[in-house]
């Protein structure tokens, strides 16, 4: 690890101020990606602005048909939250499938979505449930937040403060984990929401995406049968030592079908 200057921020405003000062500053949330990268000397931020002591970023509230999760809320807290389990069981389940117990007890929702790893689980929830990402500057629709591999709509100095999930009529998440990393080889979130059916796919492509053909089919007939015959093109999907693009494409179809079967 290279040397860096450590700052413990007491508030979002203080964190934003520190973020504006440094040469090449980075926010430290759970650190589950950033710290290993730094240990391997693959990243050398000038400053780390630690968000872990900021109380306003933590916690879960459910009211008026919305689940709001503070950016610094750990995956384990979401997985174990009785309120989340009640309101959006698929979201609690998804959080409980992330990584391993160490990762779940340290990693945060804000850190996960800001990093936008193509195989991370939370992007499927944000897009699949039609969530809104709240930052210190604005609100960003989930559909607009993830812009590419490890890329988001966040601007310099912008800090995710919370994610607001509208409670869907029903939703389910089906995940095929990488046996080594436990990231999603493919993860599919299917939700029936006030705004229509959503099918969001993570792991398969360079960035989370919505499967329009499946959404259309499910809109007229919300059943697993409605998906038969709908295939996911493999053209732009990821191809690596763990899974070929064709295999990922197949898993998208299987995952969507299983998610629907769970709730149809």
């Amino acid at each position, binding site marked *: *690890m*290279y040397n860096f200057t450590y700052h413990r921020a007491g508030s979002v405003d203080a964190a934003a101020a520190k973020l504006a000062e440094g040469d090449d500053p980075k926010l430290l949330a759970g650190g589950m990606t950033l710290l290993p990268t730094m240990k*391997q*000397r693959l990243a050398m931020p000038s400053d780390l602005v630690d968000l872990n002591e900021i109380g306003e970023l933590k916690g879960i509230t459910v009211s008026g048909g919305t689940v709001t999760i503070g950016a610094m809320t750990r995956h384990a807290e979401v997985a174990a939250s009785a309120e989340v389990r009640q309101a959006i069981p698929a979201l609690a389940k998804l959080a409980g499938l992330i990584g391993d117990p160490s990762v779940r007890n340290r990693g945060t929702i804000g850190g996960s979505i800001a990093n936008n790893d193509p195989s991370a689980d939370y992007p499927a929830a944000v897009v699949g449930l039609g969530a809104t990402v709240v930052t210190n500057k604005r609100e960003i629709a989930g559909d607009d937040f993830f812009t590419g591999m490890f890329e988001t709509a966040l601007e310099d100095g912008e800090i995710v403060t919370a994610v607001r999930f509208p409670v869907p009529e029903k939703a389910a998440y089906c995940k*095929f984990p*990488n*046996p*080594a*990393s436990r990231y999603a080889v493919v993860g599919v979130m299917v939700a029936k929401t006030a705004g229509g059916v959503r099918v969001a796919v993570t792991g398969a492509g360079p960035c989370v995406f919505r499967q329009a053909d499946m959404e259309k089919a499910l809109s007229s007939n919300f059943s697993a049968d409605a998906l038969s015959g709908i295939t996911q093109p493999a053209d732009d999907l990821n191809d690596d*030592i*763990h*899974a*070929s693009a064709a*295999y990922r494409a*197949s*898993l998208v179809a*299987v995952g969507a079908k299983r998610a629907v079967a769970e709730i149809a």
Partner: protein
Amino acid sequence: MTAETGIGARVTRKEDVRFITGRGRYTDDINGHGQLHAVFARSPYAHARIRSLNLAAARQAPGVAAVLTGEDLAAGGVGALPCGWMIHSRDGSPMKQPAHPALAQGTVRYVGEPYAVVIAASREQAQAAAELIDGDFEELPANVDTGSAQSFQPIHADIPNNLCYDWTLGDEAATDAAFAGAAHVVELDIVNNRLIPNAIEPRAALGDYDPGTDVLTLFTTSQNPHLARLVLSAFVGLAPEHKLRVVSPDVGGGFGSKIFIYSEETVCGWASKKLRRPVKWTADRSEAFLNDAHGRDHVTRARLALDADGRFLGLKVSTIANLGAYMSTFSSSIPTYLYGTLLAGQYTTPAIFVEVKAVFTNTTPVDAYRGAGRPEATFLLERIVETAARDLGMDPAALRRKNMVPRDAFPYATPVALVYDTGDYQACLDKALAMADYDGFPARREAARARGRLRGIGLSCYIEACGLAPSRLAGQLGAGVGLYESAEIRVNPTGNVTVFTGTHSHGQGHETTFAQVVSDRFGIPLDQVEVVHGDTAQGQFGLGTYGSRSLAVGGSALMKASDKVIAKGTRIAAYLLETTPDDIDFEGGVFRARGTNKTKTFGEIAFAAYVPHNYPLEELEPGLQETAFYDPQNFTYPAGTYVCEVEVDPETGGTEIVKFTAVDDFGQVINPMIVEGQVHGGIAQGIGQALLEACRYDRESGQLLSGSLMDYAMPRADDLVNFDLDVVRTDCTHNPLGVKGCGEAGAIGSPPAVINAITDAIGVRTLDMPATPLKVWTAMQAGNAAATGS
């Protein structure tokens, strides 16, 4: 007391209290005064010529004490790392062993090969300075592929075809004749996948030279500290043996990877002498992936000849074994004498011929990994036997039973140089089939089908050879070392006992098992026995721990030493009890004059030996301390039957192991709990090889793609199922405890059971390990395509 703690008792491990309370003392926990830290500069290329190394900036970096290269080591008299087993090719020529310098000289041949070392006041300073080394490399074509290595340009200039040796075993003419008369011939191409060991404690070394005594102490994570001392003094030339002390303290797992003599401990020892400061190195996980010796990596074509009734007539095997870029310490013996000799398995196959071509590639060196050669042999044999049964439409269990060595045929000489002393293979098979409810499988398969799952069952009847022996034979076969073991028992004046073993425990529980043996023999409480290992300055020479040898060979030495203690104690007791030694009985810790109530306890005899006021000094030396060396007459032959049952998800190719049964014959068992733990761990590792562990190099660049735990899947508890274990007991006939060894059986027996089960489930003939969901899905797609003619 011995009923609860003696031989056969499930004693909780003595050493676990310190391990689970964080009080273990590992190499990285030890620090020297004024210690420096070593960081190695490692090749980013699979194959490259080093045009030049500009070290000036690194040498001037803060805290740096030295930057050393291969040329510096050579100038300092540090010899190359040797391979300790000479193999001869079929034409009688010796194997071609390339020079293996501790730091590369002129050429680097695999990604991660160390070519320089930076030694600085802190690890961070050494890391920072290592990044300032300016190397000018000319990249050369690299090959990582086993099968095509012989047609690739030589990666060592003086070794044509990258061929180290072309070794054979068995009678080729007799085998060809058997095939000529066969009713059926089954042929199978088999890959045994390369594995990366991943012990939980990374390797580490601390060289600590004392200029006052001229003694170099090397703390290191070795499975065999005496052997490390011997090699580092006699071959590498670090220091004369009597001026070199090797200490291998608590070690967190080895699985073979810590047998070998590596660059890093060599460099730390030598640098400490040169700089007159302690020098420490501790691997990080990435270094371990790149640089610890890997395992397996065979490509094989096998053919089995059978008569019309399904009797095995002959087996012909042609294997290419990947040695990596250089020869690790025992690499040459693994795909030869630990592989070819096991190809008879549990069967009476009368004619066997095996040829092994060992090749060099631009990959990490390959050497022994849990099982070492025997898993490769067992996988091949149990895959082809299963395939034969399916081809012939026979029940796989029945075909095996028909060909097993009968229980009255022992000792049984195989056509591949071994003599099995004892066993009861049918009993293991019968018990395993009963436990697994083999007969009920068709109903379970149907039930699974109704749930949309494909259920399969697979058998594996393995045999292995432990306690590599005897020394004379091993010497004739090319071994550079003896293969005996030693023990010293020091009975202390107060009657408790300190035992020194030449073996080394790095997770196996020797401190408990060996203490149980001694406690049982002397009739003293378990807590009165302390087992010491791992320090060449404390104990006598020994060969260490590998190949499931510790109890079979080391325990036998312990029995011999305890015999000597009891014999001397008997003479002392006879004197004190005024009778003759022939009239003394020793039982339960008490020496008794036969037919009287006159007794002396073990403790009283010990005290008398050390305070010899009333003692036969004319006939007996004072003291009660005995040493024994034991050289085995034969290998030991653990064997068993494993049954694996899986369910495959036809849509995803995901495999779930739903039932796993293991019946093993380890002879006498000292501590069943520890043995079960060894079997659990072995099966987990075997399942890891079969389902999860994919070592992948990029074929073009030679980069290790599976270089971290994010990409290389080690088995975890939730990948497994509860194992159903039991034993059959036929005691080893030629060692005093009747023990056979249990450390590797699980890793040897389980992979073919798993793959046989999956191929049964999805109805394909071949499936390479690891059977990842992708591979199983792909195999099913291909099978479906073939079935539909598209």
